[in-house]
């Protein structure tokens, strides 16, 4: 197989379900209806922190058409964590289906299932609640202070996670200079265009089926079976099409409630959040306050770096430990520096729940680090690209904590290639035209490839051949439109010598597909495409056995090419896969089928470097990103068109993180920008000219050398843009997002 020219891997291919999407034929969860289906609505808390003193549901229950009203009084009181990933996952369980205390504006108070949405909405308004308000705290640093309102028993500090290499104190003391910064990043929302939605059915056999656009059917099954005390065999979770997720659909947000309502009523129940509810009550990216200290020498060598971050995890623990833990590791993967420390403290506040979001800690950590280092390089009078080239890890680099190799890290190639494409060296660093100031900036970033090292990282798959030589794949992958399943078919097609078009896929259903850890941590390519490769190789072996018998040639002599089993010595000796499969059925009375489990053997890292040019209107404070280059080290692009697509979308999200997004709370803790009108994600007219380049130097354990792109793609974006704005104005911005008011204020202070 080695040195063979690749036929399908490396092709630009539309995603498998594109034709269904452009015609409106693809069924998303909100498009599904069941006979006698009920409609559900949730009542959310209008106050940030309160004990429910009295709750009266009698009027709602008396409303004709209402079939169930559920509150903390009549729901199972079993603690859980909505971000649980596997059966014995030990993370703080602070959530209940419903509780007698509400902890943020948008917390669940009650839910109703009724014959129509109109009735459900009316019933929600008839529920009478008396709140005994408690003191609330919205700022994570305030929440850590003594005497701060306690949100969960035991205090607001969820944990302190520390990881380090070398001797940071000593290295800082010996460095020529030490720089310190405090940098803050906001909570942002995923803004998948599809809001959260779920349907649950419960039948007379006691079987519960939940349909929801989610990234983790198998984990949702664990959570639902736990809170409803049902055997897992009686709980099925199915993922119909996902209308965008970005981590926001990784945690079981509304599904347990919808499942409960179906079980209570014995009827199918559908709940669809509206946009306001999705922004306020689901999940956000963790906001954070970073304290960074760097020791550098006169020649620009970064000798030590110390991070302390306070992360706002919101009202419940959910991903607090997972995100803090993941974040802590990332900064050890990029520079040659031997002395580094990362201390993360996730903290409860009475704000919307922070959870998983694209990048899982990396966007925050690298925003802070790269904004800080841009200032450090300026202070040293050193070009930021030169600073990067001096300090970034080389391909044989190691993680200083364990002396373990990074794999084949190529951040240097990304920077070199990007600087050239962007004309970094020859482009003016700043330009001024009347009220408009232009500047350029860059940043690097990295992200992982799965969960290796943290916990199990497994994908299982089944692949079977049909009589005509086509195939059917059973995959637990939750494709979010990013094309993971399409990539799986390319990998399988390559191994079996069949067109990926001829591989049909059954996807993410706890009762139809084998176990998969879930689609997060950028596992899709590195782990799941590897599982696809493994199962294809297993099927290939069986095909070759049959073909050898049929053609009467030794197995070693055979190859699979273009739908044929063919002798490499005598090309005249060949049989169609149809003949081979039918031979297996007819002569040996067997099915050609493979089932394999793949466990990730390594934790490798993906890298990227982004370059941006911005123009700042010094009268309005508005920033326009004019020009953009993004370069990513992806090992090998299985489907380059969709790798580009990931990066282009990630830049939209990254520029938003830098300039326009960020949840805003009023003094009572209510999110004020709770609509698309007020929550400003970038429109087409606000996007820059963009060039995307790939570094494809191969990553040995990856399938055909491939590694992840989905999350890494957004990591360098925000700091590249912020650095460009800082450089344009000669002001060091340290708080995101750079909304016009913030920029105007800084210009005034500068004057």
């Amino acid at each position, binding site marked *: 197989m080695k040195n063979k020219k690749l036929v399908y891997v490396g092709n630009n291919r539309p995603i498998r379900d594109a034709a269904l999407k452009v015609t409106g034929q693809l069924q998303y969860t909100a498009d599904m209806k069941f006979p006698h289906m009920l409609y559900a609505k949730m009542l959310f808390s209008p106050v940030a922190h309160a004990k429910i003193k009295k709750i009266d549901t009698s009027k709602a229950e008396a409303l004709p058409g209402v079939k169930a009203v559920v509150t903390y009084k009549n729901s199972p009181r079993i603690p859980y964590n909505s971000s649980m990933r596997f059966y014995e996952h030990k993370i703080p369980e602070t959530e209940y289906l419903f509780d007698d205390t509400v902890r943020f504006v948008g917390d669940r108070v009650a839910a109703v299932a009724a014959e129509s949405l109109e009735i459900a909405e009316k019933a929600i308004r008839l529920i009478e609640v008396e709140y005994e308000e408690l003191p609330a705290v919205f700022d994570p640093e305030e929440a850590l202070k003594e005497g701060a309102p306690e949100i969960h028993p035991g205090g607001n500090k969820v944990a302190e996670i520390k990881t380090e290499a070398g001797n940071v104190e000593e290295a800082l003391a010996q460095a020529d200079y030490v720089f310190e910064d405090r940098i803050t990043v906001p909570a942002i929302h995923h803004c998948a*265009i599809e809001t959260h939605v779920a349907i649950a059915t419960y039948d007379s056999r006691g079987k519960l089926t939940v349909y929801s656009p989610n990234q983790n059917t198998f984990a949702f099954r664990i959570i639902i079976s736990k809170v409803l005390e049902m055997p897992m065999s009686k709980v099925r979770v199915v993922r119909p099409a996902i*209308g*965008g997720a970005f981590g926001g659909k990784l945690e079981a947000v509304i599904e347990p409630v919808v499942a409960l309502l179906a079980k209570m009523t014995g009827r199918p129940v559908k709940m669809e959040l509206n*946009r306001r509810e999705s922004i306020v009550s689901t999940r956000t990216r963790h906001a954070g306050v970073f304290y960074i200290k760097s020791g550098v020498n006169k020649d620009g060598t970064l000798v030590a770096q110390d991070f302390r971050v306070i992360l706002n995890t919101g009202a419940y623990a959910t991903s607090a430990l997972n995100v803090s833990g993941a974040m802590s590791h990332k900064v050890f993967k990029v520079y040659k520096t031997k002395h580094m420390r990362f201390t993360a403290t996730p903290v409860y506040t009475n704000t919307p729940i922070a959870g998983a979001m694209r990048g899982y800690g990396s966007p925050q950590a690298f925003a802070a680090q790269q904004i800080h280092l841009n200032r450090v390089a300026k202070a040293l009078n050193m070009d930021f690209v030169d600073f990067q080239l001096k300090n970034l890890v080389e391909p044989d680099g190691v993680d200083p904590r364990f002396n373990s190799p990074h794999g084949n890290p190529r951040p240097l190639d990304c920077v070199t290639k990007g600087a050239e494409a962007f004309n970094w060296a020859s482009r003016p660093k700043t330009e001024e035209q009347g009220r408009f100031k232009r500047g350029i900036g860059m940043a690097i970033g990295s992200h992982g490839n799965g969960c290796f090292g943290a916990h199990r990282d497994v994908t299982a798959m089944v692949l079977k051949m049909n009589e005509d030589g086509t195939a059917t794949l059973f995959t637990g992958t939750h494709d979010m439109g990013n094309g993971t399943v399409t990539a799986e078919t390319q990998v399988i097609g390559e191994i079996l010598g069949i067109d990926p078009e001829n591989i049909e896929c059954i996807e993410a259903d706890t009762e139809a597909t084998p176990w998969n850890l879930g689609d997060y941590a950028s596992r899709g390519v590195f782990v799941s495409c590897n599982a696809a490769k493994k199962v294809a190789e297993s099927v290939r072996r069986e095909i070759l056995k049959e073909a050898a018998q049929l053609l009467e040639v030794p197995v070693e002599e055979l190859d699979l090419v273009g739908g044929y089993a063919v002798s490499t010595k005598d090309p005249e000796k060949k049989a169609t896969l149809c003949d081979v499969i039918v031979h297996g059925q007819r002569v040996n009375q067997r099915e050609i089928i493979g089932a394999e489990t793949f466990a990730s053997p390594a934790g490798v890292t993906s890298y990227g470097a982004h370059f941006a040019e911005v123009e700042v209107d010094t009268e309005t404070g508005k920033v326009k990103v004019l020009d953009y280059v993004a370069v990513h080290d992806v090992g090998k692009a299985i489907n380059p068109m969709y790798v580009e697509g990931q990066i282009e979308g990630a830049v*939209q*999200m990254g520029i938003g993180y830098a300039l326009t997004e960020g949840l805003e709370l009023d003094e009572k803790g209510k999110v004020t920008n709770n609509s698309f009108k007020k929550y400003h994600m970038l429109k087409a007219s606000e996007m820059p000219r963009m060039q995307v380049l790939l570094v494809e130097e191969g990553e040995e354990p990856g399938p055909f050398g491939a590694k992840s792109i989905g999350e890494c793609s957004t990591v360098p974006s925000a700091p590249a843009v912020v650095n460009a704005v800082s450089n344009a104005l000669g002001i060091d911005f340290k708080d995101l997002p750079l909304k016009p008011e913030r920029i105007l204020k800084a210009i005034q202070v500068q004057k």
Partner: protein
Amino acid sequence: MQLIKLLINGKEYEVAVKKNWTLLYVLREVLDFTGTKCGCNTNDCGACKVLIDGEAVNSCVVLAHKAEGKNIITIEGIAEGSKLHPIQEAFIETGAVQCGFCTPGMIITTKALLDQNPSPSRDEIVQALDNNLCRCTGYVKIVEAIELAAKRLRGEA
């Protein structure tokens, strides 16, 4: 309830509606035209766009009874049977489709644009997309798709 007639994709539907029902609600919940998506219900995202007398309009802010007597085209009415429209083909080929939730609205906007302006500039394309949000693509390949579709519809590619 009021009985109205809606002309959708060339066919007339008689449907009983309440005064406050939007066209989006009637399309999705009453007539099962679920290709039209709901992303915000506040006129901000464009996922629910349909053509009304040739204009791309957010159906979440049009009352159903006000659409009586108008020519309504939904995403289901863009292809001719199983033959895809060149705009749809261009979206597929350029990789402009990711999660697909904004795609029907994007295609409706494109149809209205290209019917009125067969040779739009890049600026005119991004202006036309001003009321269509996408979180997956950064709009890059969507703009490419529209350029390709325009070229093909002009017979140049």
